[in-house]
């Protein structure tokens, strides 16, 4: 089999993909750590009220939202979201399988388009509001939705392109 060399564009895409993957994993893991520390601290403070919190609910929601949505995007990239895959498995490597890949891709794009675009509108709607304790802009919370949506759209398109180009498809 001949070695297919990467074009400069592909290698740049590959680097971006890798960096994005690492960033998403790290950010969501850090969010989980923050959540663990905060919730444990909430318990501690209840017994030894040395500091007055009040802002913890805001940070918990922020970290939880980013963990779930960015983490979902990272899991979307690796194709590890829960799927019933006996039909795609049975058709893998055939022309029908490739057509099915396109249908699945289109369905996912349909959902993600609404998720990302209306998520963006939701973010815009919240503009001007701030959180009560930390006085942070509210869009910081909601923008996790369109950001993860856009990333998932990118990976869905990449998956469709890969499936379309896949060599050795039988009839």
């Amino acid at each position, binding site marked *: 089999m001949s070695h297919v060399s990467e074009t400069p564009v592909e290698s740049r895409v590959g680097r971006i993909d890798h960096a994005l993957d690492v960033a998403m*994993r*790290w950010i*969501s*893991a850090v*969010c*989980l*750590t923050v*959540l*663990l520390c905060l*919730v*444990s601290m*909430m*318990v501690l403070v209840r017994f030894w009220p040395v500091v007055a919190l009040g802002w913890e*609910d805001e940070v*918990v*929601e922020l970290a*939880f*939202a980013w*963990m*779930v949505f960015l*983490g*979902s995007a*990272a*899991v979307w990239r690796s194709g*590890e*979201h*829960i*799927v*019933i*895959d*006996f*039909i*795609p498995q049975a058709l893998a490597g055939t022309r029908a399988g490739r057509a*099915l890949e396109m*249908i*699945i891709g289109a*369905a*996912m794009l*349909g*959902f*993600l388009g*609404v*998720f990302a675009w*209306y*998520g963006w*509108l*939701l973010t815009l709607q919240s503009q001007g509001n701030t959180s009560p304790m930390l006085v942070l802009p509210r869009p910081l919370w*909601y923008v*996790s*939705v*369109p950001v993860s949506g856009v990333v998932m759209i990118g990976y869905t398109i990449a998956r469709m392109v890969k499936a379309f180009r896949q060599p050795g498809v039988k009839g």
Partner: protein
Amino acid sequence: MVTAAIFALLVLLMMLGVPIAASMALTSILSFLALGGPDLLLMVPQRMYSGTTSFTLLAIPFFILAGNLMNTGGITARLILFAQCLVGHIRGGLGHVTVVTNMIMAGMSGAAVADAVGTGNILIPSMERAGYPRVFSAALVGAASTIGPIIPPSIPFVIFGSMTGTSVGRLFLAGFVPGVLMGLLLMITVAIISKRRGYPHGRRASLGELLRATVQAAPAWGSPLIIIGGILAGVFTPTEAAAVASVYALAVGMFVYREIRLADLPRILWETVRNSVQVMFIISAASIFGWLLIQQQIPTKMVEGLMALTDQRWLVLLIVNVILLILGCFMEGIAIMLLTIPVFVPLVTRVGVDPVHFGVIMALNSMIGLLTPPVGMCLYAVSSISKVPIWPLAKELWPYIVALTVCLFLITYIPWLTVWIPNLVMGAAR
């Protein structure tokens, strides 16, 4: 008509291989477009956002984290050793060890798949060395792991509680007796199979060995005490208990057993995020789907339809159980709960079933679904760690599935088994 179309679309998308979360959300989107126009679409991100960020649901990643920390930190291994000293000498000894280990682990972890992977990685190879066929040990590990979410703490109970407003503490307590009953029925099944196939029994542990194993496992016992004691005493909410249990498992793994190194933490944290978001993203999508069902008044219509057939409590429970068992063969357990709670909870409460009792029925039913082919998450997990293909594994599993189904019907028709402890501890419901 609308109801049938909505469900047909959902099933079609899922069967084609669209991720379950995307199938639920896309079905909702298309239904909104067909029924109300694009104005409703803003509900999609709104509900998906608010549906995942509730404080109660935060217990899910923490319970998964606690399980992962226990597996990496040596707690699981010590518990297995302890169980071996306790029941290893009975015929089919390691089989009983598997069940007992899972019953103890159940008191600390809330997710069946994590338990299956944690105990399976250790027990399947050691059972093979002791002369058990791999398919037997793999099937048993899968079956025993379903005890995890029934004995508290439990992710399905957290989800049921957060969706129905039922007290999670009460649900946790209600799981005790059914969980122990599951363990006993599985042990009876192991005994019958072992006798028939002439499986070996281990050597009886000396008193010294038992004492040593007990002492070594002692720090592991702290976790269930913290979780259950803390929730019962009203010191923490389930979410806080889950966080404290994670910190405890981390401390034991790092400082007592010294098996977790700082360098392991990023991997453990990422694995926890990955396992959690697989569930959370479905919960997120289910909250928009649930909103669609309610907006279309589908639960009310279905309840009225079923009530027109019968209002006998035993028959309603039978129908509900059979529907859930059939769905369990084809869908992921949490997704089934999320989809059917809005329909079934109003139905069973109409015929006088305590929601706490029903929560346990649903959780146990979805646990059986984890084992039944073609779609069963525990079946897949155990198959992947043991390298036993799905179908032979499923064939080996059927006696355990029968045992668990017997348990399901016992707890369905003897409500006392579930509601006795919560009523005793927390007072009668309403």
